[in-house]
């Protein structure tokens, strides 16, 4: 009897890329629900725009590159890029903001580098940075979260703002938008308000900004579930959050009037989304365990520096991209010790069989 030949190992593989990406999407659901609760329909419209653009752009480029379209889209990575970018954008930004950002993320940052696995930078963050540099006005107009300012806008009002630039009757752009907590803190430190004065404002809850703190808590839960599912490793999020916490502690302890509290940093802006969903993008992050600790810590430190002394209220995107740049070098210098070898050695002498 004749048989086909295959190479070992023969057992069915234990993991699947599409399953891992599906888990990431599931883990994002609590955060998405929280975003929707606090910011309304704009969140959903953003996500629909980024996700559909991501899928279409990926399909188009794959066709141009003569690659398998359906099976590649099915891996879910383009969709994740769309989701992450959509969650990072201001909710009432005009429709072309998510579209341009996603196009740049998928076409330039991902596919032009060779597609999945070959992009040195996190595509969603490249898209975000392109937008924040090119369209700073549109990128800083966040609406107020539920319970802080005006009533949330209805679906039709949201559609009107996003697609037709038509504000609801009786509203100006200033009456529907509001500084984010991070923005608020930055501006008020700039005019020498103290931390206690700032946090006494209506924007703030018990951990950080109202709404934002809950959204961050939801991302944290999603992230913990990803750790449990072994989709991500603990090194990057723990190092990143730890570094941000440790970095902010001495400044806050020394001068609690002019520096934001560590807890505020942990539960503000994109901290938790960044720690569990963005910095952990395996393609652009470090791959050695030790390297991931340095990588995560670097992001945490950079976030603090950018938020405290930089020009932008939040620094997750810049911090991630800067550390993406350093990742190959960090990987090179953090190789684990090989079984039977005295120590990790990058310039191994002639190995023998």
């Amino acid at each position, binding site marked *: 009897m004749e048989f086909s030949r295959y190479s070992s*190992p023969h057992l069915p*593989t234990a993991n699947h*890329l599409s*399953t891992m990406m599906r888990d990431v999407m599931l883990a994002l659901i609590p955060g998405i629900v929280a975003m929707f609760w606090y910011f309304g329909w704009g969140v959903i419209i953003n996500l629909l725009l980024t996700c559909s653009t991501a899928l279409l752009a990926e399909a188009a480029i794959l066709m141009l590159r003569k690659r398998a379209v359906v099976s590649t889209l099915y891996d879910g990575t383009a969709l994740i890029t769309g989701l992450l970018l959509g969650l990072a954008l201001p909710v009432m930004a005009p429709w072309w903001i998510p579209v341009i950002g996603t196009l740049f993320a998928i076409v330039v940052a991902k596919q032009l580098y060779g597609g999945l696995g070959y992009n040195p930078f996190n595509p969603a963050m490249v898209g975000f940075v392109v937008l924040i540099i090119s369209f700073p006005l549109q990128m800083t107009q966040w609406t107020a979260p539920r319970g802080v300012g005006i009533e949330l806008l209805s679906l039709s009002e949201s559609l009107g703002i996003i697609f037709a630039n038509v504000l609801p009757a009786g509203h100006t752009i200033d009456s529907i938008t509001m500084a984010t907590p991070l923005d608020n803190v930055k501006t008020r430190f700039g005019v020498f308000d103290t931390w206690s004065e700032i946090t006494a404002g209506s924007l703030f809850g018990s951990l950080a900004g109202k709404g934002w703190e809950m959204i961050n808590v939801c991302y944290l839960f999603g992230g913990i579930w990803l750790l449990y599912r072994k989709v991500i490793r603990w090194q990057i999020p723990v190092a990143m959050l730890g570094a941000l916490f440790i970095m902010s502690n001495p400044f806050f302890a020394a001068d609690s009037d002019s520096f934001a509290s560590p807890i505020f940093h942990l539960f503000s802006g994109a901290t938790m989304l960044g720690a569990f969903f963005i910095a952990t993008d395996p393609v652009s992050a470090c791959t050695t365990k030790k390297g991931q600790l340095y990588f995560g810590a670097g992001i945490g430190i950079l976030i603090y520096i950018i938020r405290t002394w930089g020009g932008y209220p939040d620094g997750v995107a810049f911090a991630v991209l800067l550390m993406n740049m350093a990742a190959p070098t960090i990987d090179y210098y953090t190789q684990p010790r090989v*079984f039977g070898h005295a120590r990790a050695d990058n310039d191994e002498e002639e190995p023998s069989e």
Partner: protein
Amino acid sequence: MITLLDNPIPIPGGLKLNANKQQSLRSPIKKARIPELLTVPLSQHIGNPAEVVVKVGEQVGKGQIIAEASGFISASVHAPTSGTVTAIDNFFVPHPSGLKNRCIQIKPDGEDRWYERHELANPFILDPYDIRQRVLDAGIVGMGGAGFPVASKCSAGLANTVELVLLNAAECEPFISCDEALMKERPEEVIEGLRVMRHALQAKQSVIGIEDNMPEAAECLQNYLDSIDETDIQIIKVPSLYPEGGEKQLIYSLTGLEIPNTELPIDHGIICHNVGTSAAVYRAAKFNEALISRIITITGAGITEPQNLDVLIGTPVADLVEQCGGYSDKIDRLLMGGPMMGFTLQTDALPVIKTTNCILATSQQETPQPEPATACIRCGKCAEVCPAGLLPQQLYWHAHARDFEKTEAFNLFDCIECGCCAYVCPSHIPLVQYYRFAKAEIREARDVKQRADIARERHEARDARLVREKQELAERRAKHKKAAATRKDGSDPKKDAIKAAVERAKARKSALKPNPESNREPSSESSPNSGNQV
């Protein structure tokens, strides 16, 4: 002194896999029948192939040597039963390459008549070198899978101090149960083999390392130890984790010692053997029996009645499958060895060899078609399970780019090809294949370089010799010339004397009879043109 850990530690990395041993352990080991034709390869081991010592048409007895070990690392091959040598030629052999190799075919006569077999009441009276000779004569190779000639290991053991002789009873690869069956049914062979080895190697400690998912087998061994009042052999359970059964992995689990890929266990005073090897050593020492049969697990959903068979080396796989009720309708893939490191057989007409521990006939469900590979996302799951502590994702990256220098820098040759990385890869990349490819390319390049180096050295040596010879010739010539020149300078006293005599005579002549002609003679004689006259 080797210190055993109080509690064996798990190996780095590794996988928890379903053992799948129970299917083949339902019935006791059955003796397989003698097939119509045996095909015995000359190379069933690591090292030089054995050299044929029989002729076509020759009658051979069971256990008679038919091919002799050649060189230090080699193993002899014996007739598995009595019969006639019908062919000595290239036949397909069970090897990952799927190629042909030299084999001896024997047509059994059905009498199963021993060539010579003596029982020794007490093999412990043999001295270590006699035992080694018996092992060498018996053609025993490591039966766990690698097939390293045991006599070579013995020689290394005799040349060094052996602190620990270790029996590898981990049997970590799923589906394979031949070692477990052996330990349960023939504990005496395993233990006595170990005692013989301990005696031969003068080892200070003897240990059997067994995975903790085989408590019954451990109990059978312990019961036998108790029955003979043997207290110096320890049975130690190690955590069940693939690839615990790797020699260096098992040693690490038991002692915490990491043996580098550039060294052997014997460099650290450890000799490690598979339990099947131990039984073969016992039979060689006690009965002078050659390694002509072994226990093989025939299993998988593709087999109707999975079981362990005691099989003559050289029996075709199809014959064994037939004795296990034939293939079931689920049969899809035929493997020799386990599902992690085994290789596929293109046909069941191939014979089994000394290192065949398992014939695994699997269903689509057990071993599905490999899914199409997608890009590596560097998730690092492979690095987490790598027992060698490598970075498979980086090895893949560089092997894929054919940057082989980089793969070596990332310690490619520490890879034991256990397949853990490929098993967990979410992108379904056939990682082990990439590593084999890179290793083969590097070996090939080294080989080419070595040959080029040898050629270059020879060329350079030839050039140097030619220059030297030329120089020597020139020197010799110069010396001769010098000698000749010195002679010409008139330093020759004989010539001088003659010349002087001639001149004196002439002077006398001219003094006696003045002649105008005579003036010309001497002048022409001394003139620089004198050579013209010669």
